[in-house]
């Protein structure tokens, strides 16, 4: 009996030690992310976040509500450490068409450690001008991008950022979240009004889905406060349905 007790104790101690090791690993890797985010923020000039602010965003994923029914969604909350950039500057909020380009910069930062700064949006637009021959991309406000016709956004991601995409239509938001759960940020076409997703009215817009905590977590380049914005499944679905439920997982 005594031997058995010792065995149980050893197992318990073993579990505790392994948990602590995991915690240390997670903490270290998360702090690596925080530092990466902090660097990118410094590059943005004028939006210098404190370590506490960044920690709040990276760590502040609310645990899933116990017993809630999220059928089809992962049973845990998570957020990808995708760096954020708003689509203005360059250009002005009243004329900006750089939402796709801004998402491209975030994805380049996430996968390739690329610079996350507004001059990269301008560089992307210059590439788009060469690719399409359309000089309107040379305007500060950029020009429209999509995955049909000349496939401007798909080609930008492939040739400029060396990233691949698959375009899907239909399905449900849980399909998006399950892509994100595998470490692939997802571009989604939505409707936006005054920097917020709306189910009717508004204008067409690209956002990047980056996490899940019982709500859908996005990076929205259409507002200065678009970092890790959370929307209920219903609010996201309504806005996404308005644009034909297009979603595009991005991977390397």
């Amino acid at each position, binding site marked *: 009996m005594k031997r058995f007790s010792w065995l149980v104790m050893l197992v318990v101690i073993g579990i505790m030690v392994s948990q602590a090791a995991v915690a240390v690993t997670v903490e270290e890797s998360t702090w690596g992310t925080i530092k990466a985010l902090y660097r990118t923020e410094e590059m943005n000039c004028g939006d210098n976040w404190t370590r506490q602010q960044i920690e709040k965003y990276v760590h502040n994923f609310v645990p899933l509500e116990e017993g809630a029914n999220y059928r089809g969604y992962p049973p845990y909350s998570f957020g990808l450490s995708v760096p954020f950039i708003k*689509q*203005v*500057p*360059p250009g*002005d*909020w*009243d*004329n*900006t*068409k*750089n*939402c*796709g*380009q801004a998402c491209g910069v975030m994805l380049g930062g996430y996968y390739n450690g690329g610079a996350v*700064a*507004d*001059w990269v949006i*301008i560089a992307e637009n210059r590439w788009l001008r*060469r690719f399409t021959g359309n*000089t309107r991309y*040379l*305007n*500060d406000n*950029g*020009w*429209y*991008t*999509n*995955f*049909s*016709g000349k496939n401007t956004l798909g080609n930008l991601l492939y040739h400029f950022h060396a990233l691949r995409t698959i375009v899907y*239509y239909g399905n449900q938001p849980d399909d998006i979240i399950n892509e994100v759960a595998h470490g692939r940020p997802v571009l989604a*076409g939505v*409707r*936006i*009004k*005054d*920097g*917020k997703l709306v189910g009717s009215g*508004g*204008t*067409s*817009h*690209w956002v990047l889905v980056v996490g899940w905590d019982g709500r859908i977590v996005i990076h929205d*380049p*259409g*507002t*200065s*406060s678009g970092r890790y914005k959370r929307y209920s499944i219903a609010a996201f679905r309504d806005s996404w349905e*308005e*644009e*034909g439920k*297009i979603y595009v997982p991005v991977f390397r």
Partner: protein
Amino acid sequence: MKTKVFLGISLVIIISFGIWLIFPNESDELIELDVNRERPLTDQIENWSLYQEDSEITVGGTGDCGNAEYTEFFKKVNSGSRKVLLLNNVLELVITPNYEEITNEQFLAWNSDDTAICVAGGIYPYYAYKDKLLWKGVCSTGYIPPENSSDYQRFQDCLEAEEAVEKYFSTTENVPNDWLTFESDNFGYQISYPSDWFLEEGNQFDNIITDFYLSPEQCGENDACMSRFVVILTVADKGCYTAEDCAEVMPYSAICSIAEEREQVTIDQFSAIEQYEYPEENCGTESIYQKVVYWIRDNTLYTLQGLDDSAVDYRHYAETFELIKDSIDFL
């Protein structure tokens, strides 16, 4: 048998005539509605009677990041009269009273002020009249609906409306009355600039003739004072391949051009460019922002550059830049 067929046809004709007699106005009304819809878009923009009161609509695009002063103003605007016209049935144009007699330059400056307007997908300042403010929605923040989607036609209609608005206002004289005008007899153009700005003769380089510098302060021999706008003329000869190449040999532009990957085009292709905007930011080790506009006229390259140094961002003068650009007239 023949009689039955004849009677049948007669019956159909009589019933059709009867229906036409009973509902003659319906088709007339339809025609009238179509006529309304077909009215040129530009005719509708300043036809204030077409604007309908709508208390649901909000203007401003402040989100939750505008500063207190602007937020207060937008609250006032959004609690007062807001009249809406859906141009081409899709693009929102809104008029509100001009409560504080804001000038057009002040009004438009909010669009480039991150502390006033800081979100996409709103209804933004477009033109300030003495008694009213005109706000305009947008078609998209960059996303184009797929061509096979139901939204695609709506998007195309919106672009058509947006183009009509831009065309309409680009022909409106925006340059203030008190501005001065510089006319270059040698090079055949004129340009207007604010009366409190200074115009200085420039230097001459190889194939480039620097015509003059424009600046809000008098610079003279003071090297620390940098001109904000430069009008430069050059003869587009065989040594000039791309707009960037031409810029490279011009003052202030070289820094940005050196690191650029350029594709060479023929002089014919280059000459085909009528107007070309070239923004540049954060190049090299210093923070430089410049906006350059090129025109090609009679094999001569004209450029207007907005520049900054480490102290002052050209975008502080963004509206003035646009007005100066609009004022250029080739004689």
